[in-house]
């Protein structure tokens, strides 16, 4: 039969391959061999170790790429360090011009980059062409703006320094942009380690940097795998480490970088819920699933991989979903009619296969399209292809529902009530993203607020924009990429660059009676005071039954304080967990409490001043100033309580994206010995102003100022459980808090060793940490003791995408 006549019968789409000749020519020009990009030049790909860049669609070797070792990393960090001086000294406008030039060059080479990325990664050309590359250009344009505005928008902040950045293979060029653009905008220089499976687009970007005239050493690229990444992460020439990848590696990096003073941001794994309410537009949700889990072969950290569907519509939803799966096309990534391309590498597809097979063994119902049988297997032989897959009737306890599969595999379960939907959604160690489908505003917003995730898409999914922060809650990591919030990851308060070291805090005396040579006569007159812990709004004896001596400025016994232990911390965290009402209150209501607290503290100012003076041995005048400043700090944070309230962006027509600062809810705080009342207030006030409940260890040597606050807290309507105070050995208690999986963030002000310990121990649940690395802060200086830095650390941004239209 004539070809056209036969097509008229079948009405098939036919092949529509994107031409890759230009990319092939580029690879040939480089003789299929690449070095690193260091100090503005490509190193010669020598005889050392190398990686092979492979096209996962057919196993074809595309290029040999040098694998970086310690020497290469050293050279790259040195180049970046050298370039930092002049780059960070450039005006904002000058840096903006460079970022703008990068954006333009990316656009000029848009199709080249798209084809190259598709060849190297296996993702369909539709996605690289329409999503990845346009978002890359957008990221550089947006951050050209931040470069221009840095000094006006972030007064008092300086670029953090040389940044080590490690990117994954799932969105190679886009993740490069997410890392490089904000760093350059802030005035930092970069050493980037590309992913071992997908090194090519970063190399092309390096060329583009040269073409665009970016000064040498501002962007450096080292190719390599895990060992190269480890060498970079361990390099002590870095001020900042940014990583996107698995939670497992994120945890290693957290431990490894602990105590080095490196700022760290981690964008890790996820098992993001995709909640479909019975009042959803079901067809909209079905296409949402396609964009959620069958986008980029499901190799998406924020993929909506857990469908949570209301029982009443579950049957219809699954039936339609199965019908929709029939029309998905898995095929050659360069074909313009391909929906799902190749998984990045054989090792990855083996992992997907293993998890799917385990799910089947476990008894979950697997559905794949009717075409995904033998013919499909034969047709895709030699390439890394996996059909779209759906598991229904999956129980929340199943590994299918708990573990990230990172492939085109959706697991589905049902719920009965909105509350149950949220419970199921939050029943995960991860908290990267959530998709919520409902035509009802109340239903959708209620879920958006209650779900624990850094990005929430209402009636949409996998939306990205440079102006909207992206990042996780819980074990999905911390730090944001994009928007104003993302810029903070590459900035540091300028004063911190020259902060002096904090004096050592000597260990506590043994929790036994004091051998006080001055004799009993030295104790204050009056009835003996028993200082207890303060947990859940009640004074509690320490679980240990031990007390430790609290000495005055001259080493004389004042009284004893409870020697708190891990069980006291456990109890305090439980009390803090229960005090949810505080987080649900309005900022206005919390402000009222903070004002009242200030008022009541001021009423007893004299008494507190006397106490501070006696404990620390400072002058009465200075002690009075500490109390006055503490009152002022409460007032300041009361003022902030209803004003640090987020931003609204319009990243698309008829779309608002809310950047909502949400509290961590339970924060563990370790206070320094310095300014025992003021430091306590400076730390606790912003935390609770933002709606957190806190577990605090006050100054270990001078705990009484905090303990005296119990009554003030009681009389100021601070609900029980909002502020929990456990006295005792700071670092011991900090360790318990850092290891506590129900604490979402830890703040630590103390020694360098203690800071290192807190950061290392926090790796367990990857809680956010804020430590002083043994550096002192002048609590009396308002520019150091209060302000956005505190509120920023007291909250995490939840981005809520809200499309609308009729």
């Amino acid at each position: 039969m004539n070809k056209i006549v036969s097509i008229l019968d079948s009405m098939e789409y036919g092949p529509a391959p994107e031409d890759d000749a230009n990319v092939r020519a580029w690879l040939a020009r480089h003789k299929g061999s690449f070095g690193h990009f260091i100090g503005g030049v490509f190193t010669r790909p020598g005889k050392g170790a190398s990686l092979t860049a492979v096209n996962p669609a057919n196993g074809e070797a595309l290029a040999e790429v040098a694998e970086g070792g310690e020497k290469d990393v050293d050279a790259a960090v040195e180049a970046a360090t050298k370039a930092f001086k002049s780059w960070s000294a450039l005006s904002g406008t000058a840096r903006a011009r460079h970022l703008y030039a990068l954006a333009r060059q990316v656009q000029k080479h848009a199709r080249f980059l798209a084809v190259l990325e598709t060849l190297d990664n296996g993702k369909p050309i539709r996605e690289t062409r329409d999503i990845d590359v346009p978002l890359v250009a957008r990221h550089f344009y947006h951050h050209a703006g931040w470069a221009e505005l840095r000094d006006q928008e972030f007064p008092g902040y300086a670029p953090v320094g040389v940044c080590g950045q490690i990117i994954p293979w799932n969105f190679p060029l886009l993740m490069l942009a997410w890392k490089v653009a904000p760093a350059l905008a802030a005035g930092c220089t970069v050493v980037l380690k590309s992913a071992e499976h997908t090194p090519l687009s970063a190399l092309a970007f390096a060329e583009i940097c040269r073409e665009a005239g970016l000064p040498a050493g501002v962007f450096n690229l080292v190719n390599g795998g895990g060992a190269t990444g480890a060498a970079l992460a361990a390099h002590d020439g870095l001020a900042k480490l940014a990583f996107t990848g698995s939670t497992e590696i994120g945890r290693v990096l957290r431990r490894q970088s602990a105590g080095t003073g490196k700022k760290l941001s981690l964008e890790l794994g996820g098992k993001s819920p995709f909640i479909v309410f019975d009042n959803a537009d079901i067809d909209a949700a079905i296409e949402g699933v396609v964009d959620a889990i069958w986008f980029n072969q499901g190799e998406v950290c924020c993929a909506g991989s857990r469908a949570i569907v209301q029982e009443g519509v579950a049957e219809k939803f699954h039936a339609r979903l199965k019908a929709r799966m029939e029309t998905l096309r898995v095929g050659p990534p360069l074909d313009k009619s391909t929906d799902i391309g190749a998984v990045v590498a054989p090792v990855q597809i083996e992992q997907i296969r293993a998890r799917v097979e385990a799910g089947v063994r476990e008894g979950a119902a697997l559905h794949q399209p009717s075409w995904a049988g033998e013919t499909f297997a034969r047709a895709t032989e030699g390439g890394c292809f996996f059909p779209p897959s759906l598991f229904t009737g999956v129980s929340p306890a199943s590994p299918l529902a708990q573990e990230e599969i990172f492939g085109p595999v959706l697991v589905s379960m049902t719920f009965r009530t909105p509350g149950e939907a949220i419970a199921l959604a939050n029943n995960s160690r991860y908290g990267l993203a959530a998709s919520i489908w409902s035509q009802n505003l109340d239903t959708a917003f209620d879920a958006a607020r209650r779900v624990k995730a850094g990005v929430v898409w209402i009636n949409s999914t996998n939306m990205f924009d440079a102006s909207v922060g992206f990042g996780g809650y819980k074990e999905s990591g911390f730090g944001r990429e994009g928007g104003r919030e993302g810029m903070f990851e590459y900035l540091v308060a300028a004063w911190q660059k020259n902060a002096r070291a904090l004096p050592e805090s000597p260990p506590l005396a043994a929790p036994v009676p004091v051998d006080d040579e001055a004799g009993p006569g030295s104790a204050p007159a009056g009835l003996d005071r028993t200082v207890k812990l303060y947990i859940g709004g009640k004074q509690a004896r320490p679980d240990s039954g031990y007390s430790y001596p609290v000495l005055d400025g001259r080493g004389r016994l004042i009284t004893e304080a409870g020697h708190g232990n891990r069980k006291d911390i456990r109890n305090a965290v439980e009390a803090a967990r229960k005090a949810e009402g505080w987080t649900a209150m309005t900022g206005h209501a919390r402000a009222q409490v903070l004002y009242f607290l200030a008022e009541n503290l001021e009423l007893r100012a004299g008494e507190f001043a006397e106490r501070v003076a006696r404990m620390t041995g400072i002058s009465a005048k200075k002690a009075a100033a500490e109390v006055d400043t503490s009152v002022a700090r409460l007032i300041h944070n009361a003022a902030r309580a209803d004003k640090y309230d987020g931003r609204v962006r319009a990243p698309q027509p008829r779309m608002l994206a809310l950047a909502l600062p949400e509290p961590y809810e339970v924060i563990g705080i370790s206070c320094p010995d310095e300014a025992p009342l003021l430091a306590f207030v400076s730390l606790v006030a912003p935390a609770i102003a933002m709606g957190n409940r806190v577990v605090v260890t006050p100054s270990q040597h001078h705990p009484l100022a905090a303990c005296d606050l119990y009554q003030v807290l009681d009389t100021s309507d601070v609900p029980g459980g909002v502020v929990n105070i456990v006295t005792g050995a700071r670092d011991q208690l900090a360790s318990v808090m850092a290891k506590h999986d129900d604490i979402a963030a830890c703040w630590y002000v103390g020694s360098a060793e203690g800071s290192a310990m807190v950061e290392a121990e926090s790796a367990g649940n990857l809680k956010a940490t804020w430590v002083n690395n043994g550096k002192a802060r002048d609590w009396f200086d308002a520019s150091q003791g209060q302000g956005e830095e505190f509120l920023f650390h007291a909250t995490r941004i939840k981005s809520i995408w809200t499309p609308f239209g009729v």
Partner: protein
Amino acid sequence: MNVDPQKTMTDAVGAGAARDLVQVAQPHSRNQGVAFDAAWFDATDINLSAVERRTATLTTRRTVKKEWQVAWLIKAIEVIDLTTLAGDDTPGRVARLCAKARNPLRADLADALGLAGRRLTTGAVCVYPTMVAGAVRALDGSGIPVASVATGFPAGLTPMAERLAEIRYAVGQGAAEIDIVITRAHVLTGNWAALHDEIALMREACGDAHMKAILATGDLKTLTNVYRASMVAMQAGADFIKTSTGMEGVNATLPVSLVMARAIRDYLERTGHKVGFKPAGGIRTAKDALAWLILMREELGREWMEPELFRFGASGLLADIERQIEHFVTGRYSANDRHGVA
């Protein structure tokens, strides 16, 4: 890969489509309609942004090139209701249109494509009622049906008796298909039962002629209205649902078409009846035609790419398709004066 990935992959994904082909050959049975039931659409609430996302990516997710594109354009010709609905229509003008419907593609081009001897006509010719008789004469022996608009087209605000009489007149003149317009007020005021009754009466008046219900979606404004009106029209027995008269401010759009296609799918699920779809107005380019064909294939399947279940209401579309086909054949960009006008 040890096999040609392009080829085998197409075979693999094509497997799903093969089943549809069997059904294409089956005769299309008419929609008998069902009793009015608001429960079929009351709870429906269409999300505009999601519909737009889907339609915006339909043509970026699918494309046809080379021979496939040409074949699809030939298919587009076969589903055109070649239309003239103007105040200055004359018997002569209609006769010209009919001649074009018989011979929509220059013979040398058809030859070059290997289509010589294969019947190639438009799906129908669509005219005003008073032009039907002339059209029927002009198309005699061609097998091309004549469609007539009726019921006070385009606004539909003439008295009911006259609207029904107009249908009977057109059918009497030989129209095989009647494109009726609905009372938009019934939709805008939520008077669904009245809409159902109206369309059911029109369906009855059509007799054996197939009825296409024009919803005038540009007047209905919201996609939820479009879905509900679609469902009511099908419950009332419409054989086709059609987007527009061509006279509204906004005519056929992909978002509206997607919603109507999904209503057709839902009606099929409930009743087993296959209802056709006709986008009309504003479809002028070959590229537009391909976009709609992709939409039909993706959302309703292969069967909805044949004139029995899919039509374009268009006048200028054919000219652009002819030019594109000539470009494929000659490799040269064509001009309008190289193709016969209607």
